């Protein structure tokens, strides 16, 4: 039985792409789209890979004869994302307050509590887990790399979604033309693992695309 390699990695990628929207009444439109991706990966006896991405149109370049102009596209915050972010901050504040009050009470009663990290370190030095149980026997097997490679290929389908998906079909009425613009976000995640029988392994993938503007 070979011991599997393990590691943790994170990567943030920002790219700018141009989209040719075409010519509308002697004006050529060429929007710039910012593609931002965050890739996280953990590998070992089991592995997880998570890729979050966003396609955001930032500027429309307008070419009219010899004149070039740029019109900025303002970012519109998603109210649900803002709401979830604020709720998470509140939860963190409530947890920190609860822990602080608990610790003060424990100190006042003479039973000082250890911080969780110190508790784990002390348990490890004793050869047990944090709750005092003996450590489990770990079976190390080789990670089936073919599964991870196949899942990575699948994830790249969403990661390379074209920037033209941010723009809808132009609608003309009278002397005006309107082009819908959207911000596209997506997330891809998959995992693989092994253990138990020597050749066991598995994986899964999922993705999501959403327009918010």
């Amino acid at each position, binding site marked *: 039985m070979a011991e599997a390699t393990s590691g943790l990695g994170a990567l943030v990628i920002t790219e700018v792409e141009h989209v040719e929207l075409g010519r509308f009444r002697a004006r050529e439109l060429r929007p710039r789209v910012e593609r931002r991706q965050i890739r996280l990966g953990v590998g070992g006896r089991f592995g997880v890979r998570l890729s979050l991405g966003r396609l955001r149109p930032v500027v429309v370049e307008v070419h009219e004869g010899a004149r070039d102009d740029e019109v900025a596209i303002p970012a519109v915050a998603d109210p649900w994302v803002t*709401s979830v972010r604020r709720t998470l901050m509140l939860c963190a504040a409530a947890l920190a307050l609860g822990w602080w009050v608990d610790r003060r009470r424990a100190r006042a009663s003479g039973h000082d509590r250890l911080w969780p990290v110190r508790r784990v370190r002390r348990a490890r030095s004793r050869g047990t887990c944090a709750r005092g149980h003996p450590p489990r026997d770990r079976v190390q097997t080789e990670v089936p790399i073919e599964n991870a490679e196949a899942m990575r290929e699948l994830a790249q389908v969403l990661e390379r979604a074209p920037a033209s998906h941010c723009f809808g079909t132009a609608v003309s009425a009278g*002397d005006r033309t309107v082009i819908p613009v959207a911000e596209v976000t997506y997330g891809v995640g998959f995992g693989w693992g092994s253990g138990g029988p020597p050749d066991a392994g598995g994986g899964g993938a999922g993705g999501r695309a959403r327009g918010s*503007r």
Partner: protein
Amino acid sequence: MIELAPEGVRVHPVYDQTRITLAGITFASTAAALASRTLLKLLRG
């Protein structure tokens, strides 16, 4: 939304009032529940 008019090219942001209202109500109720639960736990010990 990109608008092409004879005067020039303009970009108008589109705000969905229904989503903003629903997200606001959800956040307010969650914050109230969380605050009351924390306060009660702190007071009771």
